Structures are given as structure tokens and as C-alpha cells.
């Protein structure tokens, strides 16, 4: 896996945080603009895919501890977060009453679900990419 040259590596270093911020923007504005949890999670997962395919294993291991970040336990925790946020629908009316429409702080339950879904989809995609790439690195 020593194929990627310097241009790709340096470009990835520059572009990677911007892709993360863009995915976060898509999730946070999911109730106002097109997009949402699935699209944001896919964007963040694609950022990590770019990182994984452009760097080698020894470059990544000390920069970003993927092995601690992507554990099955963490994905299960995010799924639990999703289930909990789904169970918290008793508070949706009070939440919507306290918000004004067309603002960033609106959307009520939809906004929370977007963020939880983004975390869920992103970690699932990162888990898939990392576990497949780990096989290739061996």
C-alpha cells in the first residue's frame, strides 16, 4: 500500500477538516435546508474513507487513533442514543413550543434525530471502511 503520492496526501490534509465541517453543517441544518442525517453521515464517512485510502497504516496510527475511535461498543452506544432519542418523544410538544420556526434553533425533534442519525451513519460507514481496509493492510 505504498502507492499514494505526496500531492494526494497533502490535499487530503487540507481538505479533510472542511469535509467534516460540511457534513456537520448538513446535519445541523437538516430541518431547514435539503440534506439530513443520512447525507451528513455519508459525507463524514467519505471524509474518513479519503483519509484511509490516501495514507498508509503507519502514517495514520499516530495521527488518528482509529482503533479506539471505531469500536463496536461505540457504534452500539450511538444506536442506543438513537433509541433513547426516539423514546424521548414525550417532550416534543414542549420543545416545539419553545422554538421559533425558520431559525437554527427550531425543528424540535427532527433536529435531534438528524444529529443522532448522522453519528450513527458516520460511525457505521467508518466501521465498514476501516474493517475492510484493515484486511487490505495485512
Amino acid at each position, binding site marked *: 500500500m505504498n502507492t499514494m503520492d505526496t500531492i494526494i496526501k497533502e490535499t487530503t490534509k487540507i481538505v479533510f477538516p472542511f469535509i467534516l465541517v460540511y457534513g456537520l453543517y448538513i446535519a445541523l441544518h437538516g430541518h431547514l435546508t435539503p440534506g439530513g442525517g443520512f447525507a451528513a453521515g455519508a459525507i463524514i464517512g467519505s471524509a474518513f474513507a479519503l483519509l484511509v485510502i490516501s495514507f498508509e497504516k503507519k502514517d495514520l496510527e499516530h495521527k488518528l487513533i482509529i482503533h479506539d475511535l471505531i469500536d463496536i461498543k461505540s457504534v452500539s452506544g450511538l444506536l442506543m442514543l438513537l433509541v433513547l432519542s426516539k423514546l424521548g418523544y414525550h417532550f416534543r410538544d414542549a420543545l416545539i413550543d419553545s422554538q421559533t420556526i425558520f431559525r437554527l434553533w427550531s425543528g424540535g425533534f427532527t433536529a435531534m434525530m438528524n444529529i443522532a442519525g448522522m453519528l*450513527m451513519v458516520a460511525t457505521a460507514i467508518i466501521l465498514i471502511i476501516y474493517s475492510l481496509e484493515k484486511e487490505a493492510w495485512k
Partner: protein
Amino acid sequence: MKILYKNKIEAATLLLVFIFSVMLIYGAGGIHTSGDISGSAVAQQYLHNGSELTGSTNIVNSIVWDFRGFDTLGEEIVFFTGAIGVALVARNIKKTRKAGSGRKR
């Protein structure tokens, strides 16, 4: 019939496929054309009262994550199961192979 199909199961399967195709084509005739919501009470409810009921102005997102949230939760669970399955297949096999194959050494 006896010449075309070797056994009765094949003939019955083809008959079932034909019946379901006819039902699908018949049912597809009842779908409203795009933009016409006059016949669908659910679509009218979503479009007229959606922003007040959910607080979000993106109506597609409010349908996916709020009105049909349990459906989306099921989708997420399916997606999660797929990710876990990939991780299970492509995990570090070396360790388990070493532990399992004691009789080979």
C-alpha cells in the same frame, strides 16, 4: 402445460408471478401523479400542517425523521446490522485461527 413445465411447482410459481404482476399493474394505476395531492389525506396533512406539527421547515426531513420516525429507526437498525456484519466478516481472523486450531500444531 405438461410439455412446457416439468413439474407442478414451476407452473404454480409462474401462475403466482403472473397474478402478482397483474395486481401490481392494477395497483399502480391508482397512484396519484406528481403534484396532485387532492385525493390523499395524508399528503394534505403533511403539506398543510407539517411545519406546525414538527417545527421543521424541510418537509421531506420532517417526514423521514418525525412522521415516519420508527420506519427510519428500523432502517438505521438494518444499516447498523450490515456494518456489524461487515466488521464480523473482516475482523482480525489471525487471532481466532490461532486459538481455534490447536490440533494442527
